[in-house]
């Protein structure tokens, strides 16, 4: 029982970074989403050739239009088209949303720890926005690792939520830090997680999303710090060797 492909029109778009773009898509026939789900995107060439990829939704659960944020992969086939070429008013096809496991619903009372590597922040942003839309009160933390300050998605929105005390945000820069930043550039460590993250005693629901190596490291640190592996949900992208 696979959902059918349905049309989606690009109604708005904005650049999140010099190489990533949020696409606002009106897809009236797509099913309502849960926070954390992804959608398949299909492109069709003149000769009928098609290419499809899966992208996490960034928009809050159940809302229309839907939003995805696409990171341009230099030698990619689909992402350069979505970032550089697809114009407002143009149509693509989408299927889903799908994925039932890496999801969060705002009725859950448990504290939530979100750990993002790079564009892995996208489905976690859907959770943050879903909580805002619902006026949720479950405590929420976001640890967001990215190479450089220019690479941050949704920075203004996250800073605003943090300033209002809605969410506890910590950025980790692995290559370059902003001027005057109190920490050195470097990867997420066990010490950093121990220092920032909710304690295992609070039994948070944990969502970790990012490149495979990042998720392996972060999830392993969390388990060794005492977090219950059954409370840690992961989504990895990109191949290993």
């Amino acid at each position, binding site marked *: *029982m*696979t959902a059918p492909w349905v*049309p989606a029109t690009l109604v708005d778009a904005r650049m999140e970074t010099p190489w990533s773009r949020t696409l606002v898509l009106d897809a009236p026939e797509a099913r309502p989403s849960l926070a954390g789900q992804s959608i398949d995107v*299909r*492109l*069709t*060439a*003149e000769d009928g*050739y*098609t*290419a*499809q990829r*899966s992208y996490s939704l960034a928009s809050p659960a159940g809302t229309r239009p839907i939003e995805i944020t696409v990171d341009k992969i230099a030698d990619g*086939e689909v992402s350069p*088209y979505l970032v550089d*070429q*697809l*114009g407002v008013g*143009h*149509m*693509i*096809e989408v299927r889903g949303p799908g994925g*039932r*496991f*890496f999801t969060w619903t705002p009725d859950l009372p448990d504290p939530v720890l979100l750990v993002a590597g790079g564009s892995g922040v996208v489905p976690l942003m859907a959770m943050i926005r879903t909580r805002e839309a619902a006026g949720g009160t479950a405590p929420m933390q976001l640890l967001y690792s990215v190479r450089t300050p220019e690479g941050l998605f949704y920075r203004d929105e996250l800073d605003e939520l943090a300033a209002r005390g809605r969410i506890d945000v910590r950025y980790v820069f692995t290559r370059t830090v902003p001027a005057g930043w109190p920490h050195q550039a470097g990867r997420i460590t066990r010490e950093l997680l121990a220092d920032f993250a909710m304690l295992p005693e609070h039994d948070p629901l944990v969502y970790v999303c990012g490149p*495979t190596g990042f998720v*392996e490291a972060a*999830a*392993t640190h*969390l*388990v060794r710090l005492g977090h219950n*592996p*059954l409370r*840690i*949900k*992961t989504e*990895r*992208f*990109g*191949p*290993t*060797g």
Partner: protein
Amino acid sequence: MGIFSPGFTGRRREHVPDLPPGQYLERGFPVLTTGPTPHIDRRDWQLTLTTETGERRSWNWQQMLDLGPEEISTDIHCVTAWSKLGTTWRGVPLDRFLDGVETHAQYVMAGCYGGYTTNIPLQESLGRAWVAFEYDGRDLEPEHGGPARLLVPHLYFWKSAKWVNSLRLMREDSPGFWEQNGYSMHGDPWREERYW
């Protein structure tokens, strides 16, 4: 001009005759796991087989090796639409764990470190399923299921359970983790048995 994605040309087409319907060729080896990777030492590793009458047998690492591993060269197909062709593995055929076991079971439920489960049809998997511990000439990495995973390449790869530590023989079919969460009970990539 087509209705969808105007101006999209796509990459130079690669003709791949061995791909099941809806699959694309992947050169890397993606990792799809719903939780943290368990890190199990081979010295602590154990595999337990339970028959439908409750009879149990267990193997530690050396005892598993003593059953006689073999080389496997096979294509693998993930339900998320990637396939890898010509992968090489080393593992012990499932049949060897069943030598001398009296059973009328038709299915096996594989269980894993970390709690994952998946159901596999027994008869059609004999000679086509292994407990694999090497990939591409090296010890299987933990994120790919090491120290040992099931390898059932004629079915979608969620059936090839990572970190396998139990095999429970069953007379009747019963859904494992993904099978309870929307995936096919069988999962034949050539018939595109992805979802219910």
